[in-house]
């Protein structure tokens, strides 16, 4: 089973043979193993974990929003945002959380703004989680 993990800004994982992948869908985590039936779903914010064939241990990254498509023999994950462990900066993430919380406190946000702000918080939290 091949994994493609793409964002508009980069080609993170491309045509890599994996044995299992866990993706954060909009309604919760989902693990995909070989032979999964075809599926399309949208992504929430969370950690993607995948195991490269022939290697020990899971690889992890933070992804947020996008969609995932499972076709026979391949999993295509198209995320809007992605960060690996090395890219998470603790200070920046904490700042993001506090800024977003201030924004929420103002209470005059549109639906889209509200959603985006909540997502900012989630992104930062999952990013911090990635470090532990």
């Amino acid at each position, binding site marked *: 089973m091949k994994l*493609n993990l*793409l*964002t*508009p*800004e*980069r*080609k993170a994982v*491309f045509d890599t043979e994996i044995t299992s992948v866990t993706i954060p*869908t*909009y*309604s919760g985590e989902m693990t995909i193993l070989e032979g999964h*039936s*075809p*599926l*399309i*779903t*949208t992504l929430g914010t969370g950690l993607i974990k995948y195991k490269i064939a022939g290697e020990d241990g899971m690889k992890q990254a933070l992804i947020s929003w*996008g*969609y995932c*498509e499972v*076709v*026979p023999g391949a999993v*295509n994950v*198209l995320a*809007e*945002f992605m960060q690996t462990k090395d890219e998470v900066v603790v200070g920046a993430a904490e700042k993001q959380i506090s800024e977003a919380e201030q924004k929420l406190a103002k209470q005059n946000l549109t639906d*889209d703004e509200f959603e985006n702000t909540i997502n900012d918080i989630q992104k930062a939290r999952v990013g911090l989680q990635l470090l532990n």
Partner: protein
Amino acid sequence: MANLKDIRLRIESTKNTQQITKAMKLVSAAKLRKAQNNITNMRPYAMTLKQVIADIAATQKVSHPLMTKKQNVKSVLLVVLTSDRGLCGGFNSNINKFADRYIVENKNTFEKIDFVFIGKRGADYFLRKNIKGIESFTKLEKEISYGLAKSIAEKLISYFTAGTFDEIRMVYNEFKSAISQKVVCETLLPVEIEGSSFGSGANGENAEHKFAADMIFDPAPEVIIEDLLKKNFNLQVYRAMCESVASEHGARMTAMENSSNNARDMINKLTLNYNKARQEKITTELTEIVSGAESLK
């Protein structure tokens, strides 16, 4: 003949200009490479996204307001994409000219043409003509990020869904190569979906992309397609911005190359003049000495 000091000063200042233009050329070349990388990095994402939308639209027979063409288009929103900074040849003026002509040509066709400006140059140009866009995004960050493009795209899409405009078009410089850019005008909304690989028969490269008819959709196809269409639109805006940035640096590189060459020619010409003037001065002095010595005899 101008005096020697003047010429020397002019040579000096031309040399300084040449140094600046040379440096700017190098900087643009580096930035161009980065911008080109951005375009290549985005391609796989764009391809997969387009494919899936086409496939879902074809197999699930879903339609969406973002995809349906209006019967008679009355109001058009023109998104004009320029750069924030100048010194890049015809890059911005080509765009502005195009937008200008667009108003003149279509004044009678549509009831309303409005503008959104991205980049300072376009906004300033039309402000001088007393045309104020409904919104302008200036002071763009140094690098175009997907997040920035997304926030602009979300605003644009809200104009469309609110029914304020029947069509959204974008004018920008398409990146052909480092030395050539082309002004293009694309319809961004409603989205045109090209044929899926189904029905048209699997053509070579798509043959391996097996889109099962019994695909599980979670959530429902209608929800997914809405999501994907929006993403696709964000991506279109991002792509246009990337192309525009790459074009800008390409154009600036060419412009700076030309001005470095001009400066070089100018320096050569001035040096020639300088030497001539110097020679003349020496000759005059010699003649004076000789004739002075002559008169003493």
